[in-house]
């Protein structure tokens, strides 16, 4: 049984007359101990999906889904109080900018201990011990003195480790990492990624890694979901995705990695921009920018079939299969 099952998730913003679907019919699965990457540009809806899962989408956003089941719990049917018992304990999330995601008026120690107090009921010496343990687990040196530090006194990398400590405090079954390394230096990036990978393996957590950087995810993930304009356009095991991408968007993403343009005069880029509120196409959302677009593509929206959302998925040589 999968740990998380999402079917036809839809998150809308804006007026009821003219809504903007940030997430437009998304399906997703993940198992305990799996590491899945979600890749997409800004505006693809990757963060919004996870926020909807955590129950963090407020009015005027509207969340609907056919299925939204975590660990046997139907999240759509839970009352807020019940949901709060799961969120922060069995599912946790870490965010991109660690410094702004931590409360500047409280010490790091306080913020770590908070989850432990609320979800696990720890007090006194046990609380202190566990907090220290967590800081050591995330490889923060001089852990004891750091407990009384304020977020602005620590570096970006340290703050991110603190966030991870807060997130894994109650041994979650699923950890969502929303672009955890985007704001960090390259060397620190590697350290944080290693840390996340290690923690995931040690605790057998499901880990969803959201990023816009394919290179970062390539080494770690088992499976990758590519999102575009609020939909999953391709889902495949990592090796397959890189070796033979089937969706034109995935192909464009891979081509855009600078290393792939060695010897070329210009870097490869996909022309145009992601559709916004006012310019959503009637047919396939990529059709205005897709170099293989056919008439059918701009008339009807393709469904996700066999892991790819395209009428003419690319073949093993990277060529289009349209007639």
């Amino acid at each position, binding site marked *: 049984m999968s740990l998380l099952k999402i079917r036809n998730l839809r998150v809308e913003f804006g007026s009821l007359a003219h809504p903007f679907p940030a997430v437009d019919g998304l399906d997703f699965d993940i198992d305990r101990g799996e590491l899945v990457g979600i890749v997409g540009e800004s505006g693809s809806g990757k963060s919004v999906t996870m926020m909807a899962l955590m129950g963090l989408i407020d009015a005027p956003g509207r969340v609907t889904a056919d299925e939204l089941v975590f660990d046997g719990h139907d999240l759509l049917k839970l009352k807020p*109080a019940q*949901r709060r018992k799961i*969120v922060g*304990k069995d599912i946790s999330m870490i*965010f991109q900018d660690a410094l*702004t995601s931590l409360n500047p*008026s409280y010490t790091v120690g306080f913020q770590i201990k908070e989850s432990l107090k609320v979800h696990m009921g720890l007090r006194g010496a046990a609380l202190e011990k566990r907090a220290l343990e967590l800081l050591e687990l995330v490889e923060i040196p001089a852990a004891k003195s750091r407990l009384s530090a304020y977020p602005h006194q620590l570096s970006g990398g340290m703050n991110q480790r603190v966030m991870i400590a*807060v997130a894994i405090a109650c041994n979650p079954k699923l950890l969502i990492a929303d672009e955890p390394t985007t704001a960090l230096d390259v060397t620190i990036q590697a350290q944080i990624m290693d840390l996340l990978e290690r923690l995931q393996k040690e605790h057998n957590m499901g880990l969803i890694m959201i990023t816009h950087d394919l290179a970062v995810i390539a080494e770690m993930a088992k499976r990758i979901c590519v999102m575009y304009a609020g939909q999953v356009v391709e889902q495949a095991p990592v090796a397959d995705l890189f070796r033979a991408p089937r969706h034109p968007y995935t192909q464009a993403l891979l081509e855009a990695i600078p290393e792939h343009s060695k010897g070329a005069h210009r870097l490869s880029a996909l022309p145009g921009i992601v559709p916004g509120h006012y310019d959503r196409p009637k047919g396939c959302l990529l059709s205005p920018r897709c170099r293989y677009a056919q008439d059918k593509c701009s008339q009807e929206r393709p469904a996700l079939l066999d892991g790819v959302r395209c009428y003419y998925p690319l073949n093993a040589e990277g060529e289009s299969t349209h007639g």
Partner: protein
Amino acid sequence: MFSFILRKLATVIPTFIGITLVAFALIRMIPGDPIEVMVGERKLDPVMHAAAMQRLGLDQPLHIQYFRYVKDLAQGDLGISLVTREPVTKEFLTLFPATVELAICALLFAVLVGLPAGMIAGLKRGSVFDHGVMGVSMTGFSMPIFWWGLILIMYFSVTLGWTPVSGRIDIEFDIAQRTGFLLIDSWLSGEEGAFKSAAMHLILPTIVLGTIPLAVIARMTRSSMLEVLREDYIRTARAKGLAPTRVVVVHALRNALIPVITVIGLQVGSLLGGAVLTETIYSWPGIGKWLVDSISRRDYPVVQAGILVSATIFIVVNLFVDILYGVVNPRIRSAK
């Protein structure tokens, strides 16, 4: 921490010096012969004119005069009132507590009502309560407070007869001045009805003087709350599965109140200005009324002293607020 306070003090000193310069220059900028202005009489004969000039030290060069002025200030000498011929300092100390009592009550009123109102309005954005609070505060903010004072007298004192029209306490009471704060003194005196009388006399002036600070504090608290609720760390707090009450009380409140503290401190300026108007309407015997009366009576040493003292109070309070802000906001304290 200590160095932080010292640094703040250092920035204030030049401003204070500037104020003394302004107060010093004030009298000399009034049109007409400065001697006549300072002595308060017109057409002095040459002998008296020369004697006055020497007595007041006006034959000395300007910078000597200034030093003499500062020296007097340091000794607490604010000059002699032209109308009462009494030392200004003495009159000032008699009247000052009345204004302070009124100002403190008004500020308390503004904070105790405005702060919670603003907080709840921010939490329940767009609700009837929110619109109500914003409407009331907007109206309070747009009202000429001297008119508001008159309307309250008209309705509550004249028509309903609930509150007295003017003064600090009913005339029949003669309370010994121990602290200068009538509320405390009347309580201590034990005379029957004295405390109640003092309190009743305070109600209307407090409301009038406190209206604008209340409006400002309510708005500021609300917008601060709204801003804080948008911050990333609130999202993190919710992602931790914390109850909404906890998110607001523990995570949001602390950060939302920080800018409000500064605003509360800045209201002192509004209180000083408003005191002038409020005291005039309610014949409240404080320094505001004293200042206005002195201007029409051309009692310039009093005006000069009043300006200096008000500015000093304002600077001191702002300094205090700055320091308090540093204490409360860890980022400012440990930075630099």
